[in-house]
């Protein structure tokens, strides 16, 4: 075998830091990919769900006779028919020990708790036949009052108001708190606020995190094959490993009898981080009928029933000295869980709890979050999960503080942020930030943006009373990513760990097979991970194959979310590769007749110190495979694996600047410029990083301007298609000015930080700050998201006294009926801006 000797020596080419085109794209773009819905098995049957049109109702009868008799229908099953074999959708994160968690049967037989909940499933020989017959299932409901408004639901009890689950006696699921005085990480926030009321500034605001829909490109699909010794499930999921665990835990089928495969998966954004009722029903039907079955949702079903994100009210109190030095922060949230407590839905606001203090040295902090059940679609992780909410709140508040003090938004930020010299820094929320350099990211961002010039233009336009005003929004964000140290998760009562697993197998011919438990669904793991392994082992990029998304191939893992793949999964990969190198050294020493201590490994070659003798990795691989001449006691294997549990999160940060134009006549908003400088640590592939930032920005901007899941008074999702749920296209976004800096993280070998969520987290407040900044001089200090033209117009129209555009001397509104916002500022110094 000479194949290995003929390979070009690419070992010297450094892969890390290189703009490699994504190796998976060829396959994905040309359609040589395999999505779950493409999978067709012999004898496979198709499912269609019959879903409740009501948000809350008792099921009084289901007549399936007509559907059962329809052509090509094999079975029609109800919740009663499937009974306990369905298992349950589990909540993996009870955030308090007394959390109220309604039982979640995938297909209930007695009562539905949200519009879209499945009440029957039709099994037919074709998807079309199943769909036709689903219309023939006759379900009788007794409608119940529905708990829909988050604030009303939070206030309701058994006597007053409407309960989402009457048997529970409350809509309040869990109250989670953190207090820096109690935790010993800082002072008492209430005291700081009381002091500021007397002699400083108190900013009080209430912000709305609207409900969002992850809207991944590939609708969810599941195929289950129960034939054979193991039951195999293919599913469009982010979490094949967690799903296998959940299936086993909730159905009683031994974990060893279940194989879960996530083939190519078309996006998730957290929306496929779930154990879904549809997966459970498909699993149960396949087991019951003993035949392979497939369920693929329609886009309408996806928007209506796949979990939603965000949906919080945030009540915020910021205390500061008159010069803008923050003395305390109090955060009180209510968060809408929807009808059930999803896999980690209750914990999403908790993930944000540690980030409200952001990049700042706040001396006192109090956080509380009340999670609330309503008769709406359940909520769970959506890109950023908890951290966008936190970043939005604090970055909006810092702008409000600057306005109150009467200074540029950067002045209060600089006054309060952790300076470069102060790292590592333990925050008031108890996290240790390892590295950061907010000063230089900010300097660079301001330069690139042309901050001073745009401010000058803004002044000119204001003075001229232009119809189109210019606003500049600032967001200096940080986030915690790389979920997560298992001990931290344990202390938060999370149901699993946060480690990641990788294995590296040197094949005889010198190519490498790598498995990772971090299963990609669009991120480009195959490329970035190949670059890491190529550098580490000194093999060619093309010779590395990344295998993932199949519990039989990448047997261990905790999957992809929370910007964890590279910083946790990548570290596992490095460690597994290093073990391979260590395993190879004695073999190399033996073949080179040298002492192991004299073997040096560099650029894919094992050399003998002080000589020109050496062997390539591929040669050692061949020798290990043949095993003809190995040292005594050395096993013929260059395989290795590693499971890495991070000791800390890591903390990417950045300065984002946005210029928005606001047409004061129509309320229309238009982005003029967007610049960001992100510090994401060591960059493996700049092109992928840039792609993540661009996509993230579009998503965060979309929260600020376009997206909102809206329900009507009966609990029907009004924004149930892309006609009404407005996703931006490239026609709606501008060309972003994206740049990065690299302060290496000290929490992992590669020095990387997460980047998957950065753009989404940072951009939303930058945009809203810019919109508000454009019209603040008119007496406006908030626009509820999304900042629709109508909301902007009403805000302007209202302060203008209900008519015309004469806004001279307008006062800040105290309660803006159109936005439902409490716009109060404690004006202790009598400032009237």
């Amino acid at each position, binding site marked *: 075998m000479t194949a290995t000797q003929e390979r070009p020596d690419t070992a010297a080419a450094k892969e890390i830091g290189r703009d490699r085109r994504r190796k998976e794209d060829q396959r994905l773009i040309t359609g040589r990919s395999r999505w779950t819905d493409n999978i067709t098995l012999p004898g496979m049957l198709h499912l269609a769900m019959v879903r409740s049109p009501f948000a809350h109702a008792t099921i009084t009868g289901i007549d399936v006779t007509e559907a059962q008799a329809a052509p090509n229908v094999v079975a029609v099953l109800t919740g009663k028919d499937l009974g306990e074999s369905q298992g349950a959708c589990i909540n993996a994160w009870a955030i308090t020990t007394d959390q109220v968690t309604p039982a979640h049967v995938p297909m209930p037989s007695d009562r539905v708790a949200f519009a879209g909940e499945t009440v029957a499933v039709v099994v037919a020989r074709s*998807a*079309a036949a199943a*769909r*036709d017959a689903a*219309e023939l299932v006759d379900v009788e409901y007794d409608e119940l009052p529905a708990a829909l408004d988050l604030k009303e639901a939070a206030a309701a009890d058994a006597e007053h108001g409407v309960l989402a689950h009457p048997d529970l006696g409350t809509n309040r699921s869990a109250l989670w708190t953190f207090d820096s005085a109690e935790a010993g990480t800082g002072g008492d926030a209430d005291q700081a606020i009381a002091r500021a009321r007397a002699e400083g500034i108190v900013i009080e605001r209430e912000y709305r995190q609207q409900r969002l829909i992850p809207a991944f490109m590939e609708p969810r699909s599941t195929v289950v094959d129960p034939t054979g010794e193991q039951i195999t499930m293919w599913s469009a999921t982010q979490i094949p490993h967690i799903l296998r665990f959940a299936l086993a835990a909730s159905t009683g089928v031994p974990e060893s009898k279940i194989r879960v495969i996530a083939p190519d998966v078309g996006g998730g954004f957290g929306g496929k981080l779930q154990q879904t009722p549809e997966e459970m029903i498909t699993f149960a039907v396949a087991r019951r009928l003993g035949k392979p079955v497939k369920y693929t949702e*329609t*886009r*309408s079903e996806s928007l209506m029933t796949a979990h939603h994100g965000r949906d919080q009210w945030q009540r915020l109190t910021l205390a500061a000295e008159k010069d803008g030095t923050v003395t305390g922060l109090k955060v009180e949230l209510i968060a809408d869980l929807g009808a059930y407590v999803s896999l980690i839905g209750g914990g999403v606001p908790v993930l944000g709890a540690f980030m409200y203090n952001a990049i700042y040295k706040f001396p006192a902090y109090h956080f509380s979050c009340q999670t609330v059940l309503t008769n709406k679609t359940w909520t769970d992780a959506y890109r950023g999960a908890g951290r966008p909410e936190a970043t939005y709140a604090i970055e909006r508040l810092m702008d409000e503080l600057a306005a109150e003090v009467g200074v540029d938004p950067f002045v209060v930020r600089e006054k309060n942020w952790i300076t470069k010299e102060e790292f590592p820094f333990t925050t008031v929320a108890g996290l240790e930030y390892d590295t950061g350099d907010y000063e230089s990211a900010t300097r660079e961002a301001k330069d690139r943006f042309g901050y001073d010039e745009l401010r000058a233009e803004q002044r000119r336009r204001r003075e001229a009373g232009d119809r189109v005003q210019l606003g500049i929004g600032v967001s200096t964000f940080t986030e915690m990513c790389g979920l997560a140290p298992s001990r931290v998760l344990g202390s938060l009562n999370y149901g699993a760990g946060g480690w990641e697993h990788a294995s590296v197998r040197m094949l005889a011919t010198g190519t490498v097979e790598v498995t990772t438990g971090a299963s990609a669904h669009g991120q480009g793991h195959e490329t970035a991970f190949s670059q890491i392994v190529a550098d580490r082992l000194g093999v060619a990029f093309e010779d590395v194959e990344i295998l993932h998304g199949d519990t039989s191939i990448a047997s261990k893992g905790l999957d992809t979310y929370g910007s964890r793949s590279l910083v946790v999964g990548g570290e596992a990969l490095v460690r597994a590769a290093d073990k391979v190198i260590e395993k190879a050294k004695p073999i190399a020493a033996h073949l080179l007749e040298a002492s192991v201590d004299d073997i040096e490994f560099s650029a894919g070659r094992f050399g003998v110190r002080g000589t020109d003798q050496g062997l390539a990795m591929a040669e050692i691989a061949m020798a290990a495979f043949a095993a003809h001449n190995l040292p005594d006691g050395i096993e013929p294997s260059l395989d290795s694996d590693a499971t890495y549990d991070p000791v800390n999160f890591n903390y990417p940060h950045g300065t984002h600047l946005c210029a928005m134009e606001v047409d004061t*006549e*129509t309320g*229309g908003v238009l982005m003029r410029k967007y610049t960001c400088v992100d510090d994401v640590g060591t960059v493996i592939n700049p092109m992928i990083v840039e792609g993540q930032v661009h996509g993230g920005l579009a998503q965060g901007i979309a929260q600020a*301007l*376009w997206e909102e899941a*809206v329900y009507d008074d009966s609990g029907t999702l*009004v*924004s149930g298609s892309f*006609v*009404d749920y*407005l*996703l*931006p*296209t490239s*026609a*709606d976004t501008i060309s972003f000015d994206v740049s990065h800096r690299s302060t290496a993280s000290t929490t992992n070998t590669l020095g990387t930080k997460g980047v998957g969520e950065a753009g989404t987290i940072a951009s939303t407040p930058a945009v809203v700050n810019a919109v508000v900044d454009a019209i603040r001089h008119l007496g406006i200090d908030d626009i509820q998201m999304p900042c*629709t*033209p*109508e909301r902007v*117009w*009403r805000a302007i*129209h209202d302060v203008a006294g209900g008519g015309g555009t004469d806004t001279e001397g307008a006062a800040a509104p105290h309660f803006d009926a159109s936005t439902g916002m409490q716009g109060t500022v404690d004006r202790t110094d009598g400032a009237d801006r």
Partner: protein
Amino acid sequence: MIPTPFEYVAPTTLDEALAALAEHGDEAKVIAGGQSLLPVLRMRLNAPEVVVDLGGIPALRGIRDDGDAIVIGAMTTHHDVHHDPLVHEHAALLAKAEEHLADAQVRHRGTFGGALAHADPAGDLGAPVLALGAEFVVAGPSGSRTVAGSDFFVGLFETAIAEGELLVEVRVPKHTGWGAHYEKFVRVAHQWPIVAVAVAVRTEGGTIAEARVGLTNMGSTPLRAHSVEEALAGRPVTEDAVREAAALAAEGTNPPSDLNGQADYRRHLAGVLTRRAVLAAAGA
């Protein structure tokens, strides 16, 4: 989602198409570009037994010069209308409206006649077609008839086309040399308008001699703003003069309230957009 099963008929002449409609009555539905019908079928909001495809009838496609009017075949695609030289010369307002209608893919499939027959009050073509005083040629089992623009749009998704009839072509009087502008207000680019205003003006010197103004999404049908037109005639092309006339735009309208805006906001927009559209059309 999957439509209910239907039979598919593909006539190659207008007579065959009319015969198919006569045979199947209200169980038949006509498909042109399918850009509005297919979503309706897929969401099962309609379940016809028979779908009659007009795509194979060459006579329904194309734009011709007919003396004082241009005639646009019902099956002419949005893309073809957008790029047609006759349209640019004699009915530039249509090209302006087509430019912002949906996206390039939809414009290559969707048809001029299909959009008008669909009669979505938020559709972009109704207002310009009304403003230009177009007439609709409708064919049925007993021959064809001509429907005035003002009679064509009857209500929400409802036109004067009766069961068994087809829209064959639209006659658009020539407005050669008129300035035109379509001011469409949207939140994202691929959206139907929240409100839009279609304007054609003939100016003499710095004065508006004649104006035609159509409103999109200000009621259950596209509307013509006659009072604005009258008020504009004889006014100088200045912002203030036009503002006064444009302020009448919402008069007598009954705009919807939905996720994109309440009725009062739409009324406000109608005035602002009319002013902008008139000024742009007049080249100010």
